[in-house]
């Protein structure tokens, strides 16, 4: 129980430390923080170190890309949206046509008296597998996956 209290006190002091460094403490938290600062020299030292660290990280900036990147940003995004829609329509059309073509091919194979039964079964299995693969790949590539395995990553 004492260990638990000590851990939660530490956790609380870390949170207060961060809130103070980022100036996001409420008035009651600020009172708690001021009390710790006055009574705990180690806490005060840590606070000074984190304040210094914050000054440094806050002053850091990423290199900005050329202006054209921002000028073309929306247009490129728009093109990606449009192309995505075009690919979906194209793929649906292609799947329909390919499936129809394969269906007709299967019909012709079945109707061919010259081909042996086992060959017919083999060809039909290959074509059927191809259709399933096509539909599966198109579905995976073109539609946003609803079950992204990394959706819950490090919440």
């Amino acid at each position, binding site marked *: 129980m004492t260990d638990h209290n000590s851990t939660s006190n530490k956790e609380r002091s870390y949170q207060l430390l961060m809130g103070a460094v980022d100036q996001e403490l409420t008035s009651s938290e600020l009172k708690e923080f001021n009390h710790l600062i006055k009574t705990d020299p180690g806490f005060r030292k840590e606070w000074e170190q984190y304040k210094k660290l914050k000054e440094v990280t806050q002053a*850091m900036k*990423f290199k900005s890309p050329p202006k054209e990147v921002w000028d073309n940003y929306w247009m490129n*995004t728009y093109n990606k949206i449009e192309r995505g829609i075009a690919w979906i329509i194209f793929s649906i059309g292609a799947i329909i046509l390919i499936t129809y073509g394969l269906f007709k091919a299967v019909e012709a194979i079945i109707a061919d008296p010259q081909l042996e039964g086992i060959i017919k079964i083999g060809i039909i299995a290959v074509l059927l597998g191809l259709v399933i693969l096509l539909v599966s790949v198109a579905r995976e590539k073109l539609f946003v996956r609803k079950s992204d395995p990394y959706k819950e990553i490090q919440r």
Partner: protein
Amino acid sequence: MTKEDEIDERSIILLCQRGDKQSYGRLVEKYMKRAYFIALGLVGVHEGALDLSQDAFVRAYRSINKLEADRKFFTWYYQILRNLCFNYLRDAARHAHPFSKIGENQINNIIDSSQDSSLQVEQKELKEAVWKAMDELKPHEREIIILKDFQELSYKEIAESMDCPIGTVMSRLFTARQALKNKLESYFND
């Protein structure tokens, strides 16, 4: 964000949900820089950051109807972006550029102009050390420092973006800053 901004954003989102792409363009232009720089901080490559931030906008557009009325666009969009960035990072070979290459060394602005040259050299060393240390942090530690210190988001905004309580944000920030401070031991533990 002010109350007016929020109302304005809500009306833009409603237009987007009716399929108005130009309104979506306004949202994209409002948040593109923030999105790009966060992605850059996470993946460390300009081209990757540009692609990922745009791809996240494309995915957000396709799912815009799922955005609830009480949710802010960016915090919702950010969840798509971070998933894309972390998936990208899984392929370690792509993360070949050191973080220090994307940083602009602007720590000078916290240096007092009256400082002597030896102190300035020390500050130059410090900024190089900080970029290197940032590069060595775990992606999730780097993420929270980028959101708070580089992008200056509030705890509330970070909590909404990361879908966690504010207390968790504070604890994660502490862990990340502690890791950063430990890597810069000689500068901060004097």
